[in-house]
């Protein structure tokens, strides 16, 4: 009961945030937090719940982003209309990558996904139809409202919020159904899960495909807001790492973990970019590296888990004695 009150309170705050903080910088910052929260929440399904750490998720992000810009450039579609195209392509690519690589355990899967992402970046850099190294642009002037080209970040903020709520709703449903239980079991102990009839390979693939499709939506939204995509912003390894770190910092495998991570990291990055200007680009990598080390050393399950554990510890655990009796 108390938990739902807290959630409603936080949701209310998120809804009124851009009305309270009306400067363009803060509104844009809010929109970006939500955008990356979408991407990180999508990653969370395969990386957090199923425990298959993909470091190549930018492929799906890029797929969504490139679909919107390419279909605008070649066919004049409004960028947002390419959402189904990007999703379908991402799910297809995920199936293609997933079938051979999800058999690999742990780090080998991560490495395979990095290789695929880099390969995609190199290929796109050499394909004229996709703008090659220069990239593709969206509508210069909004033709209709469907182009979703606004100067203010406010409409984007609410659009991203709506999409994020859908993604979180889907994750919540998954968490409480058989697939969610199975994914956690596979993450904890794949061999034991298989002995209980869990088709581990199939469920990992499902998680990867769902995650890929949703990540692609984040890519399309990104391209719609920026109106531009190039191999670095759409397929660069830094975006993969950013998505992963947000989920891990907030709490991988927790519903709101990625949102917490995005709310910490995006402002940090925007502020440091503002302070350091263009020279800060290289420094971002250094900061991310440091964050990875800190998470791995001190908070392997993320900040949100740390907080929840603290709250749980504050209450007495009733079954503690019984545990010892049986154990």
């Amino acid at each position, binding site marked *: 009961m108390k938990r739902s009150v807290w959630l409603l309170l936080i949701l209310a705050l998120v809804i009124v945030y851009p009305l309270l903080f009306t400067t363009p910088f803060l509104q844009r910052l809010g929109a970006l937090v939500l955008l990356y929260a979408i991407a990180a929440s999508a990653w969370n399904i395969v990386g957090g719940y199923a425990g298959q750490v993909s470091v190549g998720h930018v492929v799906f992000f890029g797929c969504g982003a490139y679909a919107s810009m390419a279909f605008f450039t070649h066919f004049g579609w409004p960028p947002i209309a390419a959402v189904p195209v990007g999703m379908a392509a991402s799910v297809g690519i995920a199936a293609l990558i997933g079938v051979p690589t999800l058999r690999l355990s742990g780090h080998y899967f991560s490495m395979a996904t990095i290789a695929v992402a880099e390969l995609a970046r190199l290929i796109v850099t050499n394909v004229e139809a996709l703008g090659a190294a220069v990239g593709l642009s969206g509508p210069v002037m909004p033709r209709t409202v469907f182009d979703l080209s606004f100067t203010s970040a406010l409409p984007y903020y609410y659009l991203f919020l709506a999409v994020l709520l859908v993604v979180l709703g889907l994750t919540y449903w998954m968490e409480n159904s058989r697939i969610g239980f199975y994914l*956690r079991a596979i993450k904890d102990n794949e061999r034991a899960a298989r002995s*209980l009839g869990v*088709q581990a390979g199939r469920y990992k693939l499902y998680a990867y495909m769902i995650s890929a499709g949703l990540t692609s939506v984040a890519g399309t939204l990104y391209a719609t807001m920026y109106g531009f995509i190039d191999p670095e912003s759409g397929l660069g390894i830094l975006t993969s790492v950013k998505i992963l770190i947000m989920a891990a910092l907030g709490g991988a495998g927790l519903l709101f973990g990625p949102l917490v991570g995005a709310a910490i990291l995006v402002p940090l990055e925007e502020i440091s970019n503002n302070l350091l200007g263009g020279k800060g680009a290289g420094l971002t990598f250094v900061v991310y590296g440091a964050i990875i080390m800190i998470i791995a050393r001190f908070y392997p399950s993320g900040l949100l888990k740390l907080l929840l554990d603290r709250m749980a510890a504050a209450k007495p655990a009733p079954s503690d004695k*019984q545990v010892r009796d*049986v154990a």
Partner: protein
Amino acid sequence: MLLEAIDVTKTFGALTVVNTVSVSLNKGDILGLIGPNGAGKSTFFNCLTGDLMPTSGRVILNGEDVSMMTPEQRAVRGLARSFQVPQTFETMSVLENVMIGAFLRTSDPARARRRAYEVLDLVGLVDVASAVAGSLGTPGRKRLEIARALATDPEILLLDEAMAGLTATEVRQAIELVRKIHQTGMTLVIVEHIMEVIISLAQQVIVFHQGHQIARGTPQEVTRDPAVVTAYLGKRAAANAARGFAGDPA
């Protein structure tokens, strides 16, 4: 015939770990697999469960050849197992661990939860249902593994050293639990080191030595078998034992 292994052989490179072993079980049987360390009983066990594929020979479950099937395919067909070193889902609660098993027969979380509670009641873990599995000790984990396997509604349950690492009292409790499960009509295969367990539970015992089946029969028969005594205690002790038996008026 519920489960049948025909001439199962498993080799790793040049090493033959299981050499043409055959068993057959009817519904309600309890089969014990015993033998010294490294005799091949665990390898044979894993060929039955699908964790290993036999190099040659066949495994028949309910009339169907499952020799090349994965563990999850065999689980669907009614085979469940526990592990020698407990493989519980450490970060999940005891209840959730058992629900994973129950989900094999239903996709509805509420029904899986009900089934899980039934099984937890049977194995005596209801009181710790909400505890994290990682907080249980060895006996608790072994019980949890049995509960999880039972939740899949198996026809045959294979227990891999379910009593290893338990104290004498805990072993007696575990034997009681296995008896209770057997009384529900369950067919069981148990790999065990502890002779007391095998003698009090199994109707039929197969003794492994260096990959071969060296004896088969009731627990009483195999413990008197000279080949078995030799395998366990060495030749001289076997000779002494034989003299001992010869002088025994019974």
